[in-house]
């Protein structure tokens, strides 16, 4: 299905929402307003956006510790997310999960995850449920280059392949597992090559090109929905910030950082929209302003929300 101007503008809005949310989160964390750990997705917005544009609310995703972008792209509400980052009672998880555990099961978001690689077999299980019901839904598993070295990766891809499950594995290769560069943590260049070991298709795309990501994911999702089994897509991208807020990222090569910043996915899409005549700079600036207001409102909502009741520490351990 060819992308319409409306689709591209929607991509733009999603990417700007992620960037604005994350930039605000960085600012709030630096100001000491957010407890715990915050891992930001800045620079990687095209991956979540391009992939999730192929999904409906009935499809599932599993996310990572760097999950805000996936949640927003899958339709998560920024006010509930921000309130969760603050640990407030109105947050997605009532203040019990925080940044690393935001979920919205009704939207098929089976959670950000604090354990690297843990989402891989969970996505396989969700995909099994999709196939078991036979309703054409799919699961998408987001993970990073670091998680591609976990045993979960091997077990999940193998099981998904032999059971021909409707799951798409999206490896966001941002080149670093905390401080450990991909060059030092694996002996191959393209992680998608690993697909061959499981007898499934693998593709490597420019993860900072939202249209390229969309098209690769569209093909993989089509295969999954059609009963042709799993795929592995590697999105080459770059984490702008440190692993967590507070990590200056001194282990990164400054020249590489500079080169990747120049490949910022948002201006690239903006330029495309303008060049194709789908939008003017003023149109895009208007979207930027709307998003900024939406995120500011989310911060207000979070700040004005009540803390959880201390008695709630005991609730939600078991379903009754």
């Amino acid at each position: 299905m060819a992308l319409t101007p409306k689709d591209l503008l929607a991509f733009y809005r999603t990417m700007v929402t992620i960037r604005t949310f994350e930039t605000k989160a960085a600012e709030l964390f630096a100001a000491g307003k957010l407890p715990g750990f915050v891992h930001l997705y800045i620079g990687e917005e095209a991956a979540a956006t391009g992939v999730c544009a192929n999904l409906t609310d009935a499809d599932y995703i599993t996310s990572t510790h760097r999950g805000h972008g996936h949640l927003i792209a899958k339709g998560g509400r920024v006010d509930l997310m921000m309130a969760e980052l603050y640990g407030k009672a109105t947050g997605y998880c009532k203040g019990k999960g925080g940044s690393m555990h935001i979920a919205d099961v009704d939207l098929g978001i089976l959670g950000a995850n604090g354990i690297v690689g843990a989402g891989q077999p969970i996505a396989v299980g969700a995909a099994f449920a999709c196939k078991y019901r036979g309703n054409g839904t799919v699961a998408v598993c987001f993970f990073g280059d670091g998680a591609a070295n976990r045993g979960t990766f091997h077990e999940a891809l193998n099981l998904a392949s032999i059971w021909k499950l409707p799951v798409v594995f999206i490896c966001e290769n941002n080149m670093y597992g905390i401080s450990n560069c991909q060059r030092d943590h694996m002996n191959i260049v393209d992680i998608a090559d690993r697909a061959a070991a499981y007898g499934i298709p693998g593709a490597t795309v420019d993860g900072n090109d939202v249209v390229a990501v969309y098209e690769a994911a569209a093909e993989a999702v089509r295969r999954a929905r059609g009963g042709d089994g799993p795929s592995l897509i590697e999105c080459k991208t770059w984490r702008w910030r440190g692993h967590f807020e507070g990590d200056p990222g001194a282990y990164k090569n400054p020249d590489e950082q500079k080169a990747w910043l120049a490949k910022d996915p948002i201006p690239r899409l903006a330029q495309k929209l303008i060049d194709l005549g789908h939008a003017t700079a003023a149109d895009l600036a208007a979207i930027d302003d709307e998003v900024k207001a939406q995120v500011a409102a989310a911060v207000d909502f979070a700040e004005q929300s009540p803390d959880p009741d201390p008695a709630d520490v005991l609730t939600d351990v078991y379903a009754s």
Partner: protein
Amino acid sequence: MKKMTYAEAIRDGLRVEMQRDPSVYLCGEDVGKFGGCFGVTAGLVDEFPGRVLDTPITETAIIGSAVGAAAAGLRPVAEIMFVDFTGVCMDELFNQASKMRYMFGGKAKVPMVLRTICGGGLGAAAQHSQCMEAWFAHIPGIKTVLPATPADAKGLMAAAIRDDNPVVYIEHKQLLGLSGDVPAGEYLVPLGQADIKRAGGDVTIVTWSWMVHRALAAAEALAREGIAAEIIDLRSVVPLDKETILKSVAKTNKLVIVHEAVKTGGFGGEVAAVVAEEGFDLLDTPIKRVTAPDTPVPFSAVLEKAYLPSEGKIIQAVKELF
């Protein structure tokens, strides 16, 4: 009522629940064509096409996928062939299955059963004979059950499958051939309800799984010497039926705990702590624990016999209280 073995009763529990709820499926290593390493799931693959799935040797994906399928609305019964292998999939159990509901603010359900088997006495040595229930009991968010009789095996399986939480269901190798009366059709034993397997007024023996039977044999011998032991089979360690334990200790004023797992960090320590905290005044004597020693399970039959809690050791522990 129907006479069946413990293994047949588990299978009957699985069958009845699979008949009544199409969202229940089984998966695990060799659970299909092979019928399970101990034959427990024999024949189910033919009775329920597409719902009994052989997996590769892939414990992490067995439990990880069960978590995902359960979160997406199915009711998996995922088998880990021996409880000793649960270390391989521990993250999926203790960081994922058990915490999803809480971390997500109560907005997820993970209705899955991890079926596995524990215990010694077969010369299976240190990696195929352990009793690990204390591990699972230490993880809020999951329930852990250990049936000791065929009827309990069926009823607890049904209750575990219908429960909306992850349940670790631990069978025992020594009990698979044990025969007993089992109710036909739908039959539930609520999780968290201990069962007094023998009533007595002189000493309370709290135990579970295979050791229930060694405790019953000890109680029989003690009765001949004029000591009436009350045998409480916990059936589930989480939820723990404190009330039944405390009520019994209130009557007998003496407590012996018997379990097959090693002593340090064993669940017996928790039972003892509960009674010390909530029933200290009920006790006339110190609490005794009869357990395996703090060693790996040995291979040689001579060594394993020395390792396992025996009827004689239970009798001796009880007598020390009089």
